[in-house]
Structures are given as C-alpha cells and as structure tokens.
C-alpha cells in the first residue's frame, strides 16, 4: 500500500518536471477560470434560450380557445365612429347569414 503511494507521488513529481525545451506559462487566475468555464457556457445558454423564446415573446399573448379573451374590440372596415353608429343603429332584419360556435 505504502509502496503504491510512493510510486504515485513519484509519478506526479515526474510529471511536474519539465521536458526539454518546455517553457512553462503563467497559470491563469481564478477569475479567468470562472469566466471561461462557467461564464462562457452560461452566456451561450442564455443566448440560445433567448433565441428560442424571442419569437413567441414578440408575438404577444396567443389566443387559446376556452381561456377567455383579453383584447379590446377591433372593427375592421367598420363605421368611423363605432360607438355613435351602434347607438343610433337599427338592427338588420331582412338579412341572412350564419351562426356558428367552436
């Protein structure tokens, strides 16, 4: 057991000795380690998440049948003053059409 440990220590020491022509560089600081191995992946994660979520965020709330309606009324090609027009309107009686539900 002890022989094994001594052997392992020797291996580690051998690894710390430099090869011929090897010039050791300075180690990187803890801050740099954090930036490279934590910061960069986190940034990448955020960018991808944003890319995935942005289209639906830009589109706004989506209509889902059965979950109610939130928007104010819209009238395309309607009367110029909708409120006044509705107040003074007489309902159409001789018309036709369809009712449907979904």
């Amino acid at each position, binding site marked *: 057991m002890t022989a094994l440990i001594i052997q392992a220590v020797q291996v580690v020491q051998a690894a710390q000795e430099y090869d011929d022509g090897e010039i050791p560089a300075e180690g990187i600081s803890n801050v740099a380690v954090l930036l490279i191995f934590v910061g960069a992946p986190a940034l990448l994660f955020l960018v991808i998440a944003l890319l995935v979520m942005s289209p639906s965020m830009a*589109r*706004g709330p*989506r*209509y*889902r*049948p*059965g979950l*109610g*309606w939130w*928007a*104010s*009324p*819209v*009238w*395309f*090609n*309607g*009367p*110029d003053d*909708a409120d006044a*027009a*509705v107040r*003074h*309107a*007489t*309902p*159409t*009686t*001789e*018309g*036709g*059409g*369809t*009712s*449907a*539900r*979904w």
Partner: protein
Amino acid sequence: MARVPAGEAFSERQNDDIVRAIRLARKQADLPVSVYVGTLEGDPRDVAMLLHGALGEKAPESVLVAVDPGSRRLEIVTGRDVRRRLDDRSTGLAAMAMTSAFQGGDLSGGIANGIIALAEHAQTPRSLHTGAR
C-alpha cells in the same frame, strides 16, 4: 378603407392579413366585408344584427363577420341586397372554414381565409346576355 382601431388583439402582420383579405374581397367580388372581433354581449345574433345595422347606408350590400373569441361564437350577417348572391349555405361553408381554424387557435388566419371563402362564393358568374350587372 375605413380606419382600423388600435387594439392589441392582433399583431401588425395579423392585422395586415385581415386587411388584405378585406381588400381582396372588395376587389375580386365587389363584396364589402366588415370584421368585428370582440365580445358580443347578450344574444350574439341580436348584437351582430345591430352591428350590421350600424354599418349605415352600405349595410344592405355588406357582410359583417362578428367573432367573439371569449364565448367562442361566430356570426356572419349578410345584408338584404348581398344576400341574393351570398346565400346562407355559402356563409355556412365559410363559417365552417373559419371555426375550424379558430379551434386551432388561429384567429387572424381563420378570419382571412373565411373572408376569401366568402368572396369566392359571392363571385357572380358573368352572364353573356344581360350585360352589365
């Protein structure tokens, strides 16, 4: 084209889709279509008839498509004159096309497709012996 009131119901592109469909119906079939999207409080059919009446002097030849997404009701009202070339069976078919899109959550697409379906049904075949309509 009358104004489009500001509302957050549709995005700009969805608005454009509906406006383009309305313009197409006007151009291809000379069919004035008005689209209301909002709550129809009370009896939906009565409210839709009132809204159609509110279109004023162009009401007899106009089609109103009223959509209440909250209570999931669709009302199509045809005026007295336009009813002659756009019968209830045709509006029923357009309504079916619309509601199937609405079920999938596609309001603006369903409305645009429905308007185009209405315009296709309303196209009067050119008759050779009676001349101008």
